[in-house]
């Protein structure tokens, strides 16, 4: 049986909050930094979404169905594309019509709701599924949670919602001696197949590609295909999952990343024994080898591969708990603007900005962070949340 490479790219942009002082509480309930959101969305669309979509479309055409990819686009990102970069959204729709692109489901808000509220989680997934159907004309069968957050119970909820495949991290502390390059199943409900990210081969592209102090720089498609072939000599599937913005934004066009991507499918398909499939296809094709036990939530973030990047300190926990206290009254309020704001405040990025781990490590955190310090992020978020709380009917 042929071996499989599975490519999935995450598309997400949060609604960044404007500087919201306590004087604004109860007086001004507009929370967003329109300028930053618009500028960033336009920049990323021009550097990444438009050119890379274009490139992928040409590769799909060139390989005539043998090259496939998967996307997950958060509902929040789709909203912002509609608002600021409709051409980018249109080009994703064009890709969806090639038949070689799978769209995955996630939480609409790119939220952490799976960690606190099963009901909210299911609501948000349903909302995202509807959004994907509406824009891309297909109902997702595979699921990826925010930041690949996964645990046995989250997997069980996902299976209950009818998904057959879920993507998560091949976290070293979970895998131990086991290889991430096989199909696994959820420990509670074996109907849910698990695809695990190969972090080494993913990060070679996403983080290391343009790093000149890396021993393997410069990375060529040929070299990469060699590594892949090596990994697939024994194993079944290599899952290369990353932020879509790695192409052109994190790794700039000048680094040669586009040429690398353009050359990659040819190099891989040269190996007679390898094919490129989407997540749902991979899960259908291969036999699961074992259930995977994940009692505590894992993710693809930081060295720890847990949820400490979002809920690791007391600031994050306080903000998170205060936010979800509002869940029921916001739901009951039937106020669409309030519900929209509540959704946007749930985006995991807001909690990521409050992470104090970056004092010791994490250029990555700094890169994504509009605030100078986690304390500023917390104060600003709490001011906004205080205003939102005032708007919730008592």
């Amino acid at each position, binding site marked *: 049986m042929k071996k499989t490479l599975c490519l999935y790219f995450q598309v997400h942009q949060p609604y960044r909050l404007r500087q919201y*002082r*306590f*004087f604004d*509480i109860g007086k001004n309930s507009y929370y967003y930094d329109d300028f930053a959101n618009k500028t960033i969305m336009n920049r990323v669309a021009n550097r990444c979404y438009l050119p890379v979509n274009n490139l992928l479309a040409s590769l799909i055409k060139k390989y005539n169905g043998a090259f496939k990819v998967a996307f997950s686009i958060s509902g929040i990102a789709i909203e912002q594309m509609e608002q600021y970069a409709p051409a980018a959204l249109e080009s994703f729709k064009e890709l969806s019509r090639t038949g070689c692109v799978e769209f995955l489901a996630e939480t609409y808000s790119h939220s952490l709701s799976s960690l606190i509220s099963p009901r909210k989680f299911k609501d948000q997934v349903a909302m995202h599924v509807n959004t994907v159907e509406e824009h891309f004309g297909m109902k997702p069968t595979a699921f990826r949670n925010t930041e690949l957050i996964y645990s046995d119970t989250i997997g069980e909820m996902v299976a209950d919602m009818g998904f057959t495949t879920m993507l998560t991290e091949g976290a070293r502390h979970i895998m131990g001696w086991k290889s991430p390059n096989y199909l696994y199943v959820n420990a509670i409900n074996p109907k849910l197949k698990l695809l695990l990210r190969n972090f080494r081969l993913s990060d070679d592209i996403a983080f290391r590609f343009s790093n000149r102090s890396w021993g393997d720089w410069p990375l060529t498609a040929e070299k990469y295909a060699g590594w892949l072939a090596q990994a697939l000599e024994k194993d079944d599937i290599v899952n290369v999952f990353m932020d879509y913005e790695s192409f052109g934004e994190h790794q700039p066009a000048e680094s040669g990343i586009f040429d690398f991507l353009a050359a990659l499918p040819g190099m891989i398909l040269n190996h007679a024994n390898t094919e490129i499939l989407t997540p749902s296809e991979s899960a259908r094709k291969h036999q699961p080898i074992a259930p995977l036990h994940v009692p505590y939530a894992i993710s693809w973030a930081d060295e720890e591969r847990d949820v400490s990047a979002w809920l690791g*300190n*007391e*600031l994050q*926990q*306080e*903000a998170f708990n205060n936010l979800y206290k509002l869940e029921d009254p916001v739901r009951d309020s039937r106020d669409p603007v309030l519900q929209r704001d509540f959704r946007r405040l749930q985006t995991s990025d807001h909690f990521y900005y409050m992470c*104090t781990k970056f*004092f010791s490590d994490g250029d990555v955190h700094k890169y994504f962070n509009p605030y*100078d*310090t986690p*304390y*500023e992020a*917390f*104060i600003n978020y*709490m*001011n906004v949340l*205080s205003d939102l709380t005032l708007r919730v009917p008592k």
Partner: protein
Amino acid sequence: MKVLMFGWEFPPHIAGGLGTACDGLTRGLAKQNVEVLFVMPSASGDEDQSAVRIINASDVVAFEKKEEARQIFDNVHFLKVTSNLIPYLGPDEFEEAIDLEREKEWNEFRISFGNKFKFSGKYGKNLMEEVMRYALVAASIARQYDFDIIHAHDWLTYMAGIAAKKISGKPLVIHVHATEFDRSGENINTQVYELEKRGMDQADRVIAVSNLTRDIVIRKYHIAPEKVMTVHNAVDFKTAESREIERGVPEKIVTFLGRITYQKGPEYFIEAAYKVLQKCKNVRFVMAGSGDMFNRSVRRVAKLGISSHFHFTGFLQGEDVKNMFAYSDVYVMPSVSEPFGISPLEAMRANVPTIISKQSGVAEVLNHAIKVDFWDVNALADAIFGLLNYPALSRMTVRCGLEEVNAMKWDNAALKVKNIYESVLNEKS
């Protein structure tokens, strides 16, 4: 390695942070096997000499014979240049002055001190004169003692450092704890600037207490960047200082503690207090300290109509300072310019959440204080509001802040200083 170090004060008799810093640094150096001869203008004898040997400049015979004086002045050329600055120190005038003075005072001097200068060691009217005399004594000390390198703290001792360098030929490191720009804003005392610049020019290395200060040394004194190194100050706190104190008022208390002068930014504290009080009444503001902006501050508070929630304590020291910290729910240091700034560390040690200005050197080493631009009154008000209203914020800054402050050690700073000594000595040999 042996260092001849010039300071102006040393605990227990100190007026500011300089003496404490010298104490911490010399203790750290002692652990690195660096021997320190610490010269100060007026020692009282009760200084802790476990880590240093203290030389009291008031006990040193400046020169035994007139020829010696001559020799010192031939070597110490800088004094000629300053002659117009301080007339009696020109070589000719000096000789005359010395002769005169000797004629006049010789007898009293010999009876009471030998041929010694009596220094006040204070920061009084005759400061310039003392600075120059200190340099003379320094030259004499430099001839009497054996050492490898000279280290001078702040402008008061730069002349002493230069004199010692001229006499001994040993390299000079000067240590900038503050510059004239920190003390006076843009309206600087040009005499002091002159002395500071001369010290920096003559030094083989300049140590600045923060990158902020290093930047001032480079930009405003035009010193070559490669010569200027940052060694952040440290603190050696033994334990957390927490005391129980009964409060007289139910409101939360936000405190400014420091001199009420331009560079400490008291007006920004007042404006921020006004903004916070518009939104929440359950808070009182305290301005503890004295200074030339005191009256203006009181007037401004009255004009804003917030006097019922804004209190002035006047100058505090010792136990009162500790009690003030114990009373406080938030400590604010909105300094316009602060080379380092030790008091936020003291607040954090007392478990008080702390807000500091980004224009302070200490902001470079603290992660768990909230940082704002001193001029950004809105941000300052917002930070105060946040600390008062979002409990997780004060809990976390207190817990992590204490850990952070306790991890700052003079040992680490001393190691950096020792490395600087070594790099200079290697260059020379």
